[in-house]
Every structure is written in structure tokens, then in C-alpha cells.
């Protein structure tokens, strides 16, 4: 009986010890796997939108700025209302001289100028910096604000050689915005012209521009925002390693 009891206690003890050793080892393994994944996956891209400078087409005084920095605008939306009383009075004068041809031409020009006192958005996009304030007087063709265009949004990244190979094998690449908690499908596009010389192994030296498959979706993104690019092959089957790593990642994440 004593032998059986001793055997049971021994087995219990040893099982506990071995489980402990196994746990420590798989935790260490998880850490290594996370690191290597983060490394291969450590691809961030930064959003680059076209910068469109909005210019005044006529001179005047800025009455109201109807948009704010960060606001989405569509092409044709009113951005700024200007006023120019001189122009208004001139128009009346020109219109008064009905039979004078040059006066009529001047009147037409003045009418267009008055229309241009309402500054409209030239493209879809997001309002960036404002270069003027309400109440200031502006010249013709002066900058009033910056719009980040929603057309042709790009994602700029720097890759290692391995990562570039991986991208070429993928059928589609995902980019993830943690801010919006949203995934975007991106398409590899142009290579940046200058390749840097690497100073260490694994250094990123290839510059690449991605474009967005659905550009309209990219409207919400801000210029210079960072997105995580996922290089993992989502079609891969789960290996036993994944069971262990998911387990520990789940526990350690709490």
C-alpha cells in the first residue's frame, strides 16, 4: 500500500514539474514566435494623399469660412465666402451702361468674379490647414487652404527584400487601421526611385507605394496616418505551434 501511495505521489509531483517546465518552454516559444511574426509583419505604411492647394480666384475679404480643418468635403462644396463691395458697386455701374460694349464685357467679368467670391472645393477630400482667417483681405490667386485629396490615395512603405518577395506572392494584401478598426485592401504599385544601401541585415531598403483597391474607402484616412500591413498568409493552415501561441497570447493579453 505504501508503495502504491508513494508511486502516486511521485507521479503527481513529477507530472506537475514537467507541466511547469513545458509551460515555461511554450511561453518562451510564444514569445519567439510573436517576435518573428512581428518582425516579418512589421510593415507599416503611411498614408499619402495628394495635397491640393485651394487658391482664391479673385481678391476680396474673407467673410466666412464654412469648413473646418479635418472636415470632409465633396467637389463643389462651399469652402469660403468672400465679399468684395468694390466689385459689387462696379457691377452695378457696368450693368447700368447698357449700350456700352466694353462696359458689358466688364460687367460679365465682374459677374464671374463675384461668383468666384464663393470658393468651392476643387476635389473630394479632407480639409487640411487653413492659410487665412475670417476678416482678412486676400489677393487674387492667394492660398486659402489645403485639401488632402481623396483621389489616388497612396500607402508608402519601406520593405526588406524578403518582405518584397512575400508581397509579390500574395494575391491580396491587407492594411489595417487601428484608429478606424478597419481593413483595407491594397495593391502594390510603384517602387520608389531611391534604394538605400542597407547598413545591417534585415534593414529595409526598398521603398514601395501601394494604391487602394477601393479608393473611395480611403476617404476617411488622414494624411500621414500609419496603417499596419499584414503579410501573413491567411490561407495557411494552423500548425500545432499556433495552438500553443494562441493559448499563451490569449492568457497574457489579459
Amino acid at each position, binding site marked *: 500500500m*505504501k508503495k502504491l501511495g508513494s508511486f502516486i505521489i511521485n507521479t503527481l509531483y513529477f507530472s506537475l*514539474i*514537467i507541466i*511547469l*517546465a513545458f509551460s515555461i*518552454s*511554450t511561453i518562451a516559444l510564444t514569445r*519567439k514566435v510573436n517576435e*518573428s511574426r512581428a518582425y516579418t509583419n512589421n510593415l507599416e505604411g503611411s498614408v499619402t494623399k495628394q495635397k491640393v492647394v485651394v487658391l482664391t480666384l479673385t481678391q476680396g475679404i474673407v467673410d466666412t469660412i464654412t469648413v473646418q480643418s479635418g472636415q470632409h468635403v465633396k467637389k463643389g462644396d462651399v469652402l469660403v465666402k468672400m465679399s468684395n463691395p468694390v466689385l459689387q458697386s462696379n457691377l452695378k455701374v457696368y450693368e447700368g451702361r447698357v449700350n456700352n460694349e466694353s462696359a458689358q464685357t466688364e460687367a460679365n467679368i465682374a459677374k464671374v468674379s463675384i461668383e468666384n467670391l464663393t470658393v468651392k472645393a476643387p476635389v473630394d477630400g479632407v480639409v487640411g490647414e487653413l492659410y487665412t482667417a475670417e476678416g482678412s483681405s486676400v489677393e487674387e490667386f492667394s492660398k486659402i487652404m489645403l485639401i488632402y485629396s481623396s483621389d489616388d490615395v497612396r500607402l508608402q512603405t519601406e520593405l526588406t527584400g524578403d518582405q518584397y518577395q512575400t508581397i509579390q506572392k500574395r494575391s491580396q494584401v491587407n492594411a489595417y487601421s487601428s484608429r478606424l478598426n478597419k481593413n483595407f485592401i491594397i495593391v502594390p504599385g510603384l517602387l520608389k526611385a531611391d534604394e538605400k544601401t542597407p547598413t545591417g541585415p534585415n534593414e529595409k531598403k526598398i521603398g514601395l507605394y501601394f494604391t487602394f483597391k477601393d479608393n473611395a474607402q480611403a476617404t476617411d484616412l488622414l494624411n500621414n496616418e500609419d496603417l499596419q500591413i499584414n503579410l501573413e498568409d491567411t490561407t495557411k493552415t494552423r500548425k500545432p505551434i499556433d495552438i500553443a501561441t494562441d493559448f499563451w497570447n490569449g492568457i497574457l493579453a489579459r
Partner: protein
Amino acid sequence: MRITKIKRIPNTALLFVLLAPITIVYYAMYVLNPANIGNIYLYPLQLFADMIAIFIVGSLWLTILLDLLQPEYHKKEIKYRGEWLMEHRPTIDVLIPTANEPYEIVANTIKKAYMMDYPYKKLYILDDGNSEKIRTLAESLRITYIQRSQKHFAKSGNLNNGLQFCKGEFFAVFDADHAPKQLFLKQLLPFFQNKNIALVQTPQHFTNTDNFIASGTAQAQELFYKYIQPAKNSYNSAFCVGTNMIYRRAAIDSIGGIAARSHSEDIWTTILLHEQGYESIFFNQILAEGRAPETITTFFRQQNRWARGGFSLFFTHNPIFIKGLSIDQKLQYFFSNIHYFSGFAILTYLLLPIIYLLFGMLPLNVSESNVWLIHYIPFFVTVYFLPFFLLGSLKASTISTSLASFAPYLSAFFAVITNNSYTWVATESKSKKFTVIAQDIWPHIFIIALSLFAIPVGWYNEADFFTTLATTVWVILNAGFLILFIKNGGESKK
């Protein structure tokens, strides 16, 4: 006569004495250089372990060296005339304390003691185990059999209790598992014609070396008895090891009896004697044959006892601070005590390569591995092959048992630090308590399991091929020795 010291030092030992300082200093230069620090948390561990190893090897080196260099006129002349026995007719009590050791072993010791060739001896069996069989044997041989009702202070209490009934001028003590040879008393008593000598100690010799564990510890002990104890002799620092010795009764009485403690009373008693100015002699001739522990449990028990002795001396009665001891004595006792800190060093050395495989962290910055190797390998050889240098051979069992002994040393350390009370269990006794082997070897199982698991983890995405390879080999070796220890340490077949 002159006391035998290391008469002719073997060439390999001479090589050790010459090389050790060079290899040690060379490595110390590397490891102490802050430029070589790797991981900031592991580095102190490595440094700590290395300092312990350096200290222990260094103290051994110093002991041997100073003994070699002692000029002839410093060595004391000991009066030794065999005729003194007939002239003086010293009386001697032979005490055999026992506590639940296996009957056959105790019976053998008793019979051998009975047959020692000297007329003026009286035997006493001090049985703390209440064995009927032993009582019967004692009666049949007409030997005094003493039991006591209260068993405090274990062996020393047992001895002190027995001494009450003893009237001899001297007394010898034999542990139940050490059987004296016939000439023991005749050979050793003449030393006591020098009035100041209070202790004559002879080596422990182990005959059961066919057993794995026994052979491993026997070789470790050989180192002690061949080099260390004789060297201590030169400085009057030889200490009692608990068996195979003769004490002068008057000297023991003057310090109030054998030191009253639950363990390590032998070395404590010697310190007290030295404090009073008495002298001790180590006579390097095998005059008794004993048995080394054969199973893991018994081996660990013994090592735990010895380690507790060392640590408790170190922390509560550190010989460095004891008045009445000479500088040599202080140093020698100190060196013996610190030997058990090697448990920390061994554990660190076992764990660091595993930590590298699991987490990729290194205590030292070995990016230029050649530099580290050049500094480390000579040191490594000096430390790990020490028994080879000094004894001429190195057995796997020695390495195994040394590696495995980190467990009893560390548990002894914590027991002493936390003032754990200690119940003395004889090395060979079968305890009534339900002992489970797992209690003794769980650290080893843990390290073995961790080693095996760590290898695949280490090779996943390995950072540096050669470092990982070297570490893997090292881990496999260590685990192999531990496995060997566990496999061969099972219950001995009787």
C-alpha cells in the same frame, strides 16, 4: 616522527598549481570587464557563480601551495614512540553511536571494533534506535549497551550521554557504518604523548565504490583526504569529521563535552578545542573502512547535513571572527565552510544555457565569440577537471553527483537562513516517515525536462548558429549527467 604531508606531488597536481592562477586571473579579467556585460539581469548571476567558483578553486590552490612551500624547519616534530603505550598504558573508550542503521552494517562495525588489537579498551554501544538485535549482540559480546530516553541533540547528545559512563583517558568514535581496522588504536594512541594534542583524525575510506553514487562521492572525498586535510594538518587546522578519530577526554571535558548541536558537532567541537589552544592531527592512513551513501535519499541527507554544518558555521560562528584561532586556522575553516556555496554556482551554470535557448539572453556579450572562448576555456578546464589534475582520474559518477548536489546544498542554505530546526536522521536509516523520492529530485527532473523542451525552442529562428549549437551541446551534457544520477540512484539492491 614527522607527520606525513604530500610527499611527492604528482605532475598533474604541480601543473595545476602552476596554471591555476594564470587561467583564473585571465578569465577574471574578462568577466569583470564591464565592456563585456550582456544582459543586465543575467550578468550578476554569472558573475556571482564565477566568483564562487574562483574562490573555491583559489582556496584549494592556496592551501596546496602554502603546504608545498612550507620550509622544512617550520614543520613540527611530533614525538612518536610506540613504547609509550606500554609505559603509560592509556585507557580508551570506544563509542559506537547508532540510530536505525541497517543491522548487518552496525554488527560488522561492532565486531571489528571488538577485535581491535589493544588490551585497555572498553566498548560502548550508544543506541538511539532501540534495536533489540543490537542489544542482543552487545550482550553476547559483553559490550556495554546504552540507551537514552530523551534523544535531544542527536549524535552529540548521544555521545555526551555515553561519556557519562566512560572513565577512560581517551575515547574513540566510530559511526555505525565505519569499521576500524585491528591496528587502529595501537597506531594512533602514541600521538597523545604530546600533551597538547586533543584530537587525532584518520581518513574516511569507502569500500562500496561499485555503486554509482558511492563511487562519485568517494572520489570527491578522496580529494579532501589526499590534499586538503593533510594540508590543514600543517596549520594545525585538521578538523574532526565525526568518525574514525580519538579524542583526549580531559580536553573534551574542558570545553563542556562534545558541542551540543543537532548536526556538525564534529567540526564545531574541533573549533572549540582550537580556540582553547589544543592541537589536532590528521594521520593520513586508512585505518577504518566505511560505506558511502548509495541511494539518492541517503546521499542528499548526508550532503544536506554537511552543508548545514558549513553554512551554520559561516553565518553564526564564523571562524574569521573567532578569537583564539591562528590566521591559518581561520582561513582553513573558512575555506571549508564556503565550499557549500558551490550549490549556487552549479545551479546558475545549469540554468544559464537553458535561459539562452529559451529567451535568447546571454549574461556576457559574446558577439565576438572567439574572445570569450579564449578566456573561458582554460578556466573551464581548471575548474571542471580539477579532480583529474589532482587525483589522476575523473569519473562520470563524480561529475554526476557533484552536479546533483546543488539541491541539498541550497536547501541547507535556506534552512540555515530561516533557522529551520533540524531532526537528525542517520545517513543510512530507514525513516519511519513516508518519504517520497520526488521531494528530493524534483529540481533535477525540472531541469532535465526544461533542458529537453528548451532545445527545440532554442532552434526556432535561432539568432546565432554557433552559440546555439554550443549551448545545445552543453545543455545535453548537463542533462545527461543529471539523468545518469537519477537513473543510477535508485534503491540499492540488497
